[in-house]
């Protein structure tokens, strides 16, 4: 049984002037148990909609989404128990402290404060987050620190499927490295399957077992990084991941990050 399986998933949104935007166009993909799958794509390519559909926040128009064999559309509560998500915005109650936000997040998954506190301490130690800062309001913390807390919140509920939607976008290089190191540790130490959406080529190549490229709501390719690069090879030389991405989408790395929805 796969950790995640999508079959022919379609999703369109109606915009104000009656225009219909196809966010997911017959998307099929799977993530095996313990596997890390990366999806590369420019902004507006459908990555976030993909994550929202899997996390039961958006209902697909058609197709099937299964998490550990359970239909996520029909039985959302069952699949919600086994997954968690980190998105590009570290969404918290900004006036509450990191600790208060974490305790609240844990309780929504049935984890009491007494059970959560030692686990929070352990996770914060692992990510190099000073315990004394955990009592400061979130709005006093840097973006990088907030993103670490977002990862801690997700990990606290022991998800077997982690959905990471551009977790390092907008972070300074140091914070980015820290967050990436933390994802690496989750990958190595926990039995979690991970779907990582990003437009950071290096991140995808380094952290993922397989990498896919998404464009205009379609998955253009999904393979091991080396295979993917070979697929777009020209003149016999294997391109870099950036060159592969450009060949597949027509976007440069900079354009992929800058292009609006």
């Amino acid at each position, binding site marked *: 049984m796969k950790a995640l399986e999508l079959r022919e998933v379609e999703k369109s*949104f*109606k915009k104000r002037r009656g225009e219909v935007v196809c966010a997911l166009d017959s998307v099929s993909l799977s993530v095996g148990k313990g596997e890390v799958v990366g999806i590369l794509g420019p902004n507006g390519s459908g990555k976030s*909609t993909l994550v*929202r559909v899997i*996390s*039961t*926040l*958006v*209902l697909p128009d058609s197709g099937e989404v299964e998490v550990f064999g359970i239909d996520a559309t029909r039985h959302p*509560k*069952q699949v*919600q*128990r086994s997954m968690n*998500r980190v*998105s590009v*915005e570290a*969404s*918290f*109650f*900004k*006036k*509450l402290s990191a600790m*208060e936000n974490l*305790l*609240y*997040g*844990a*309780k*929504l*998954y*049935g*984890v*009491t404060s007494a*059970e*959560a506190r030692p*686990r929070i301490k352990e996770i914060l130690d692992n990510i190099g987050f000073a315990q004394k800062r955990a009592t400061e*309001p979130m709005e006093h913390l840097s973006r990088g620190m907030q993103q670490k807390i977002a990862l801690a*919140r997700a990990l*606290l*509920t*022991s998800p077997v499927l982690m959905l990471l939607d551009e977790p390092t976008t907008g972070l300074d290089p140091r914070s980015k490295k820290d967050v990436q190191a933390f994802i690496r540790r989750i990958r190595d130490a926990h039995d979690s399957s991970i779907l990582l959406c990003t437009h950071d080529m290096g991140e995808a190549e380094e952290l993922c077992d397989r990498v896919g490229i998404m464009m205009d709501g379609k998955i253009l390719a999904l393979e091991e990084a080396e295979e993917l690069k070979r697929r777009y090879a020209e003149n016999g030389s294997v391109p870099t991941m950036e060159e592969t991405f450009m060949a597949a989408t027509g976007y440069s790395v900079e354009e992929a990050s800058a292009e609006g929805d």
Partner: protein
Amino acid sequence: MHNRLKPRWLVEMIAVWGYVQRNYFLTKRYFMWEVVWLTFTTVNAMSITFIGAGAAQRPGAEAINIQEYMTFLLIGALIWSYLSMIFDILSETVQWERWEGTIEYTFMSPTSRVTHLLGMGVYAVVYGIIRTAIVLGVAMLAFDLDLSEANYWAALVVLAVCSISLVGFGVVAAVMPLLSPEKGQQVTYIVSALLLLVSGVYYPIKVLPEWMQVMAQFSPVTYALEGSRAALLGGVGLSQLWGSIWPLLVMGVVFVPMGLFVFHLGENYAKRTGKLKRSG
């Protein structure tokens, strides 16, 4: 962690406590705003009560029992303060989290929507009782109120029953921001204003135009005020308050399931159209 081994009911109860505790944490963090709102509510209740004192200066005032009139106004101000607070907290359930940016995390958690709204309802009732008790304490020090006949127990029962129907009413209103992220919350303010207008908070509903009196029949606040005033001013017992209690019970039975059903429809609509996404 351990949650997969716990019985479902226990997981849901832990989550109810999570919502209550989160709101308590937020109240602490916005403490200065709490002081401001408490001051505003207290001053507002006192100002309205002074309208009764002012009536003594009007021609023909000797026909009015001023002490009773002031108590009538204060009860209206206090009960409206309590009930509108419950309605506001429930109706802002979605909008507040959308503003904070946490709505998607709440909606993708495995605990049920009933648990979510129950947690909000429990906090609203406890918070409302504490604030109203403080305002009542201040008002009792400031005014010579006519509460010699008061049947506090009967008034509390009426308010408790009304709280349930108001929670249902608030849940129906909470769905508005799911249907329209920009304009939804504005609609709930209009509903709140209409409840204030037609429910006889500061005057008997008999003085209203007939069409407003018809609207008043559908407001739980109308029956809560009728019952509470009868208990506090006239010392009326529970058996004689049945005329106020049964409409509230019916409204509770209708509004709570209806609120949850409407919320479920609104949530599905937001998930189909992608309107859960953070805005603002």
